[in-house]
């Protein structure tokens, strides 16, 4: 595809804008993007992501019904509206209280990852460590199946069975 501005170079930057229900697409080369100041926002603030997410699912009561927005954390009194405004949460419990809305947001902010990998506090009981390992293996299994890497998927399945014993 050629650049829409100079019609010379290949278009390497593709922008889709949806405003007032109208979808417009722009295809430009790197050079023209810089010239025309068509900058791609590389880092969207997390609260903006939440606003986008809420705006994109207004009809699905299951996901973002009014009940979700009315939820109040019993520990800190925080609501999603406050998070949307401030960009930070009120207490560690919020991750559980607002799980439904935060889950997809977290996944988006972390390149599709949904579970922790890496360091675990030394005081963590062995059971919990195994639980973390299982969560990880299941996530990796999901990715392997999605990528149709069945050899890896079989290996992961065996590992899961072994850990579950």
């Amino acid at each position, binding site marked *: 595809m050629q650049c829409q501005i100079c019609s010379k170079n290949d278009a390497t930057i593709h922008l889709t804008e949806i405003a007032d229900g109208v979808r417009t697409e722009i295809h430009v080369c790197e050079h023209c993007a810089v010239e025309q100041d068509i900058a791609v926002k590389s880092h969207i603030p997390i609260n903006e992501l939440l606003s986008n997410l809420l705006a994109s699912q207004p009809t699905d009561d299951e996901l973002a019904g009014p009940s979700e927005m009315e939820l109040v954390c019993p520990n800190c009194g925080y609501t999603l509206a406050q998070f949307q405004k401030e960009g930070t949460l009120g207490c560690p419990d919020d991750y559980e209280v607002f799980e439904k809305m935060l889950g997809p947001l977290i996944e988006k*902010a972390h390149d599709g990852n949904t579970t922790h*990998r890496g360091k675990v506090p030394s005081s963590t009981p062995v059971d919990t460590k195994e639980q973390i390992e299982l*969560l990880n293996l299941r996530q990796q299994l999901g990715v392997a199946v999605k990528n149709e890497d069945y050899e890896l998927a079989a290996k992961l399945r065996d590992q899961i069975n072994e850990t579950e014993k």
Partner: protein
Amino acid sequence: MSNMKLTDISNDINEWFDGSGPLGDIIMSSRIRLARNLAGYKFLSRCSTAEKTEILNKLKDIITSLDLGDKVFYISVDEAPTLNKHFLVERHLISRHHAFGKGPRGAVIAEREFFTAMINEEDHLRIQVLKAGCQLSHCVEQINRIDDMIEQEVEFAFSPRYGYLTACPTNLGTGIRVSVMLHLPALKMTGQIEKFFNAAKDMSLAVRGLFGEGTEAASDLYQLSNQVTLGVSDSDIVSQFENTIIPEIVEYENAARSQLLSNQSDILDDKISRAMALLQNAHLISSQEALFLLSHLRLGINMHRHMGASTPAIEKLRTLCGVSDDAAETAGSSIAKINRLFMLTLPAHLQLNYGKSLDTTHRDALRAKIIRSALNQDYPQQG
């Protein structure tokens, strides 16, 4: 705990900024930061002043009594004079958010500056380890050891699914931010810096210009850091940096330096000569201009040290920096000299070392005087 004052460190640079360390000609420094919160407390936005003070005192007591292999000193950030706050930010010891935030907060800093703990920043605790050159593996090893020591004394908010719980979901998981400070003057000079920005974006990495305004850093220094903290272990992130990202950037920058030397040595010599002439003769110089010009001197010296480059301007530059033989050059005395000028002429450094606040014109005059006296051998040294 040490009684060190900021003026004890403000008149020189520490090891992390002296240009030493592996790949030091391109990777100025490596930094790793961990975000942690105490279990049983709300995040800071929901804490009362009394709760913040309780968290501050608890963490301060624990961290100041750790055996870190260096003396530490404590700064009560909320009570510190504005100039001191600016100094700590310039020095990369605390974040802007921490310096100019709200409520009771403090910083525990190692005298040699390789370690800082920011208490009550966005999270209850953020610890950082800072080293010269490309030393991320050492940084991660050391920070994990310190994190383990703190964890012996307190319980951190942790969930099996999400890992270490942080006030902002973007830091969730390992809570780790791995970053390197890169000097990329040749990519900039050859008009290829955009490529680096785009490559970083493709790898979900954040780029920030340092010591300047906006991403177009006047100093040609950029900070590159990871954004994904969930689902990737700290060692995976570090090895991605060390085995893939850093070698590629170093190769890009070195290719651009070779290109300058073989095809565009006139441009290179022009930049270096102009930088020398202005720095040696200016009587008023802004921070931005000084950063911009000193960057070209650093490039010239590093091209001699690491590529054996010898152009007329580079030879003149070596004499200017007072390096008479290659042995001294290899030891990096000229690079340390440039880096010292770089840091010590930043606005808050200037004023703290002068002993009082100065307006812009006086700062520009003082900055020019310090640079002139450092670069002109026969110029009278200022007291």
